[in-house]
């Protein structure tokens, strides 16, 4: 059946009473202002956060070193978040992304150290693994017709288990310099990982926002039946998006082990929720209401700057947690309130 509706929607299913949501009082000027504000809210928030922390901690926060290192260090999370953005756009979830990332990182570390694989061979193995995982997932999601939430939940457990079976639970260090150099070499003072991620983002931007493909994926996510009847190959796009997410997660794992120089299968678990947070937060900017590449990217750095800033202020970590949670909700809320259209 191509009958059921999309699963991932940005808006809640019915926001307030129908009347309230209309913002009847806002004139055209106010609305245009609101839309612009919404569109670039993330940029403004990022600038504001940087300014605030720079004033509060001029010596440590606003150092070039700090900024450039942040750019590099968040690159693998950004890569994961980009993959997540693609599946969200097509109306699915991928909860196995972080497991795939951890699998990939630890298997690369294991193969290059304990098994004398060349860096390239190890890379090939994990990217193919990522591809296969994505393919199996999409078989169950697209062919069998199970909700992606549950398939990827199971797949995540399975993949982590398999990675532990192969590479063990311990953190494996000492990966070859050939691998680390790729990601750590500095260009203009910024780690190469950042530029690699940027290239992926650029390709993603062109494919998703400049080419018809992106609109097809969006239509598939929003109204699969209508999309299918408009001649869009919805199933191919759903498979493609799930596989892309998996491969990007795998690449993110390679980047992580390249940057950190060590990995264990569970190393990437803490990245899952931030990646989703970034994708959802990013959907409030640039093309509000839709998951988009630049939005995700800026959101990754916005959240990173927030976290680092709070750390540098020396606040207890629980305060940071409370702030991070509140900021996430409020950022999305403001963007939504400002951007409300008829």
């Amino acid at each position, binding site marked *: 059946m191509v009958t059921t509706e999309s699963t991932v929607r940005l808006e809640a299913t019915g926001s307030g009473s129908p009347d309230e949501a209309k913002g009847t009082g806002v004139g055209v000027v106010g609305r245009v202002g609101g839309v612009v504000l919404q569109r670039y809210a993330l940029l403004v928030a990022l600038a504001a956060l940087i300014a605030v922390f720079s004033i509060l901690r001029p010596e440590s926060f606003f150092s070039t070193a*700090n900024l450039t290192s942040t750019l590099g260090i968040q690159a693998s999370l950004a890569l994961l978040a980009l993959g997540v953005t693609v599946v969200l756009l097509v109306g699915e979830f991928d909860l196995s992304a972080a497991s795939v990332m951890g699998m990939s990182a630890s298997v690369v570390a294991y193969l290059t150290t304990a098994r004398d694989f060349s860096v390239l061979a190890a890379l090939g193995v994990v990217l193919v693994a990522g591809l296969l995982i994505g393919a199996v997932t999409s078989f169950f999601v697209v062919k069998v017709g199970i909700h992606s939430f549950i398939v990827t939940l199971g797949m995540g457990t399975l993949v982590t288990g398999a990675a532990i079976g192969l590479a063990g*639970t311990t953190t494996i260090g000492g990966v070859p310099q050939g691998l680390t150099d790729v990601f750590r070499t500095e260009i203009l003072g910024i780690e190469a990982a950042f530029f690699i991620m940027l290239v992926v983002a650029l390709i993603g931007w062109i494919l998703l926002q400049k080419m018809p493909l992106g609109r097809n994926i969006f239509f598939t996510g929003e109204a699969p039946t209508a999309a299918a009847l408009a001649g869009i190959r919805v199933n191919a796009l759903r498979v493609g998006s799930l596989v892309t997410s998996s491969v990007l997660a795998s690449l993110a794992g390679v980047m992580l082990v390249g940057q950190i120089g060590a990995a264990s299968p569970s190393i990437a678990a803490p990245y899952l929720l931030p990646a989703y947070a970034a994708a959802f937060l990013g959907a409030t900017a640039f093309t509000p209401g839709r998951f988009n590449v630049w939005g995700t990217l800026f959101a990754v750095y916005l959240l990173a700057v927030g976290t680092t800033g709070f750390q540098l202020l020396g606040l207890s*970590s629980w305060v940071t947690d409370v702030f991070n949670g509140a900021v996430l909700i409020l950022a999305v809320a403001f963007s939504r309130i400002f951007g409300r259209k008829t």
Partner: protein
Amino acid sequence: ADAEEPGGEGGGGDASALVEEMQGLLDEYSGQPEFGEPGPAFDATQLEGRTIALIAIDLRVPALTEVTDSAQDVAEQIGLQTTVFDGQGNPTLVNQGMTQAINSGVDAIISVGLPVQIIADQIAAAAEAGIPVVDVINTPPEAGVPGQGSDPNVYGNVAPDSDLVGRLLGATAVVETDGAANVAIMNTSELTVAPVLVGGMTEILDECEDCEYTETDTALVDWSTELPGQAASVVRSNPDLNFMLPIYDAMTLFASTGVRQAGAVDQVDMASFNGTAAALDLVAEGDIAVANVAQNNDWAAWAAVDQALRGMLGMDPADPVLPVRYVTTDDVQDLDTSSQMAVNEALFGTEYRDGYLALWGLA
């Protein structure tokens, strides 16, 4: 079990002899540890105003919070500044914390529980920048080698002797079962100290002819969900089981629930490591948990600051080994377990603080 290379004496084979020997080992660590100077004295006043960065893998891990808080207090007390960075369990953040500390030119870094593999490069970078890095309660200590058992670029290490802890726990099983221990070791192999700790246990249990052991492995994140069921299963699949050795206290809390639910309170006892207040409460009850090897995270903090001070002064690192204390139900009957600090002070006293201050020329 093969008793190929027994601990000290020739190793008779008589179970009671072994029990006695093990009791001796336990007795040796049953008293309140005394402060022994870990290295030569020096004048810490010259370091006033310097900055120590404390970087923790995850401040949601209580032990790490305790170390961090205490180290902050100690540093403040002697006129040093501190910055704290919480990695929130996220390797990227940890890297960022290390990099930031190095970039902002701190004078020393105390790494609280960071897996050294994932910060190997930052440790090297710090060493290059002349910033001493101290590793605390994460890696089994080894005196006299670069890095003291931790990463070679680490300046100094501070941790309990994990092998000793393992042997004490193994000895507990032997003694409590009169040399006929049938033990389930509950491991979490991903933790850095786990192999050494478990190695210590099995070393003792291998010595004991009538002893047997099996091992389970539970991931850190699954402790709360899996350990109760795991413990219940282990008890049930082995009716002869009479002892359990979860390697950490937090595991004991969950494992004991499982034992209770399996109705094996009278069959199985357990002992573990850390000396946390919640676990000592169980030891005081005594029906399941019967003994504990306690460590003092406040002491660890003092020792870590001591290492950092030495590092800043360009001295040799001090002795990395932290003392532990073996306690049983009798020892903790009247213990005030309302706070971890109260437990620490009751089991370890406070003399070590004066000892360190004296060592630093501040008292």
